[in-house]
């Protein structure tokens, strides 16, 4: 199955749960609802054999976004589910760590820096700013959008 077929197969299997799909050469970015995230991740990680490269939290004007970057290594293609949380002061979403153990540190880092609370995370605590000398009262990167 070539790269295009792999993307088509994914869209066929999960397309009804995706929105705002951006399709580029070797890259597929799409928005999913929080309640559908784990099902999509299960399909990517367990059924397709994708590897989680990392995840990226970004503060945009009206939301906090979390973008997971899954690499399908045999084809060199990336599948990137995006979850948008409009409650910027209290962003909450499901953790994917119960499905992908390798997501533990990056989800803790996003909690650290953007204040995203991950439901069902096995170890919901700070990662990088655990012993920060400034005794942080808010996430380090939150509130940077002017």
């Amino acid at each position, binding site marked *: 199955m070539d790269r295009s077929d792999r993307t088509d197969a994914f869209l066929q299997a999960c397309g009804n749960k995706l929105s705002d799909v*951006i399709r*580029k*050469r*070797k*890259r597929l*970015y799409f928005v999913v609802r929080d309640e559908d995230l784990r099902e999509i991740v299960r399909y990517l990680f367990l059924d397709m054999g994708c*590897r*989680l*490269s*990392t995840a*990226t939290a*970004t503060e945009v004007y009206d939301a906090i976004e979390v*973008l997971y*970057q899954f*690499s399908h*290594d*045999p*084809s*060199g293609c*990336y599948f*990137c589910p995006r979850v948008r949380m409009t409650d910027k002061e209290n962003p909450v979403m499901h953790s994917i760590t119960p499905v*992908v*153990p*390798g*997501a*533990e*540190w*990056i989800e803790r880092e996003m909690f650290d820096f953007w204040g995203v609370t991950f439901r069902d995370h096995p170890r919901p605590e*700070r*990662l*990088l*700013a*655990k*012993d*920060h000398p400034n005794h942080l009262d808010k996430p380090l*990167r939150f509130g*940077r959008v002017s």
Partner: protein
Amino acid sequence: MKLSENANQIPVGPFHPLLEEAEYFNLTVEGETVVDIDMDIGWMHRGHEFISEQKTFTQSIFLVERICGICSTSHPLACVHAVEDVDNLEIPERAAYIRTLIGELERIHSHLLWLGLAGHFIGYDTLWMWAWKYREPVLQMFEVISGNRNHYGMMRVGGVARDVDPDRVKALDNILDTVDSKVHMIVKAAMDDPVLKSRLVGVGVLSREDAVAMCAVGPTSRASGVPWDVRKDEPGDAYGMVDFDVIVQNGGGVWDKLVVRLLEILESTRICRQCLEKLKTVKGPILNDVKEISAGEGIGRYEAPRGEVFHYVRTDGSNRAIRHKVRAPSYVNIPTFSASCKGIPIADALITLAAVDPCYCCTERALRVKGEDAGTIDFLTLSREKTERIRREIHG
């Protein structure tokens, strides 16, 4: 975790000669056996992602080049790949060969650095001296190419900054001859050594299942039978135009990681040779004129010596990223200790922690813990004593 009556805790770090970046490991041991390990990072957060978002794309390349002092071209390469990915930019063929040549030379010197330190940790100081001695000509090659032994400043969006003229290609060819013969000698000596093999086989095993679950990368995952290699999976630069093999072992232990790195050194010399040959014949520009980067998202990655370096940029059409995410390979390889360190003797803890090559500090500052008998426990001594015992058993 509640400790059993017989358990003790041994802290390693946050500042330890194993770790160039400060990290903290808390080993729980029962007698001689490690039963649990806890990790704590974040001792040296430098804010590279945030600073990069204040810089132009070209300035960011210089910034990310300073994330790692050993493999200092991996981050710039992944960074320019990410920016180029936003607009699917291509680079000139000659620039592709120069990028690949630098990347592979870096793999050789980084693996030789690890090999030397691994030898030192288990009491093989001859291996250490050899590996570091023959790493020197590789650094000289960088000097010929870029003028610097480290932090080369060669990568640009759309190509490379400087060309390698024919005289320098010839000089590089001569130095590569030396490197080639010496690394073949070292690789053969290391792989044929019965003491080294007895000391490292079956030590600190990471199973294939754990490597996949924890999303490990690079030699750490390839030593566990997972054939992921960005150079083959998404062959950017000249990797699609050169011939090389991905080295995979199935044991998952420290010996397998050693074999993967040793054989990768030989593959890298093959790639360098092909790149130098092509640089003699492929002419043309080395840098495309990139006027602007559109608004969008880009993913860039590169197979660094330690595994996949990942960069993500999100742009708004201006000359800088509004979000720049960086993920180094050690970030995903270090959590594998929770699987590979459990159940091993404490004498093997040092080499198991070192086996993922989590960047070393050049100053020897091994942790010493006071024992009840007022003696000391030293990981380095324990590790070297075990090698000596095996050496005596084999050689009498």
